[in-house]
């Protein structure tokens, strides 16, 4: 695992995430959201979970970011009114980050380096999905179908 790559990816990811959280223009924020997820997928590649990284790119940048852009375009009349910024949220977020960092640094069992492992192939993931994780897989399929129908019903025009 490369230290320089880690630093570059973490700076990119955190900067894009901060931009997505604070930018005034909604469309810029949605595009920074997509860049932040590219960074998270790069983290997954760095950690040796290439399949999950690719799934993240496909699902988040291919589907969720496009969905967010569509929603912004459909609710466009409202964009200029986004003036409010609640500063108590900043205090809570900074306090949470300080608390988490303190507790992570205080735990000695976490300062370990990654062991050498066999590469995780798609074949192994597929075998696990089809043997020991087959019930969760079916439940996820049901959940996604229910979400699809629910989203359709929610945005359907009401009959008068």
């Amino acid at each position, binding site marked *: *695992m490369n*230290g320089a790559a*880690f630093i570059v990816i973490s700076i990119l*990811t*955190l900067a894009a*995430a*901060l931009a*997505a*959280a*604070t930018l005034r223009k*909604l469309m810029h*924020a949605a595009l920074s*959201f997509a860049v*932040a997820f590219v960074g*998270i997928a790069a*983290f*997954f590649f760095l*950690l040796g979970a290439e*399949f*999950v990284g690719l*799934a*993240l790119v496909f*699902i*988040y940048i291919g589907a*969720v970011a496009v*969905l*967010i852009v*569509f*929603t912004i375009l*459909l*609710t466009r009349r*409202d964009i200029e009114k*986004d003036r*409010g*910024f*609640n*500063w*108590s*949220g900043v205090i*809570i*977020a900074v306090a*949470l980050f300080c608390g988490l960092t303190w507790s992570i640094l205080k735990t000695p069992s*976490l*300062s*370990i380096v*990654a*062991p050498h492992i066999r590469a*995780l192939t798609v074949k192994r993931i597929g*075998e*696990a*999905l089809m043997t020991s994780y087959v019930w*969760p897989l079916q439940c*996820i399929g049901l*959940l*996604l179908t229910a*979400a699809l129908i629910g*989203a*359709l019903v*929610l*945005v359907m025009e009401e009959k008068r």
Partner: protein
Amino acid sequence: MTPTLQIFLIVSAALFSIGLLAALSRRHAIFILIGIEMMLAAANLNFIAFWRFAPKPHQPPVGVMLALFSIAISAAEAAVGLAMIIAVYRHYRTTNVDQLDQLKG
């Protein structure tokens, strides 16, 4: 320098805090959804990091499976959330969560 588990967890905590900041301090409903998605991504990063740094990699790969299912659930959540935002916008002509106060006593 090789990154330890601590550094990954700190990056993930920073990502979670940024998501919480977006969810708490913005008044636009889409920003709140973006913040929630970011917090879920931080949780996924934690799953993968703990899986990678485990002393004995498991067979089946538990952390990877958890991250995959969590990604699927967050995709479903994003679809329903955005549909709700569109439905609310149709009724009230706004997506500012401060103006959605009809149930306020």
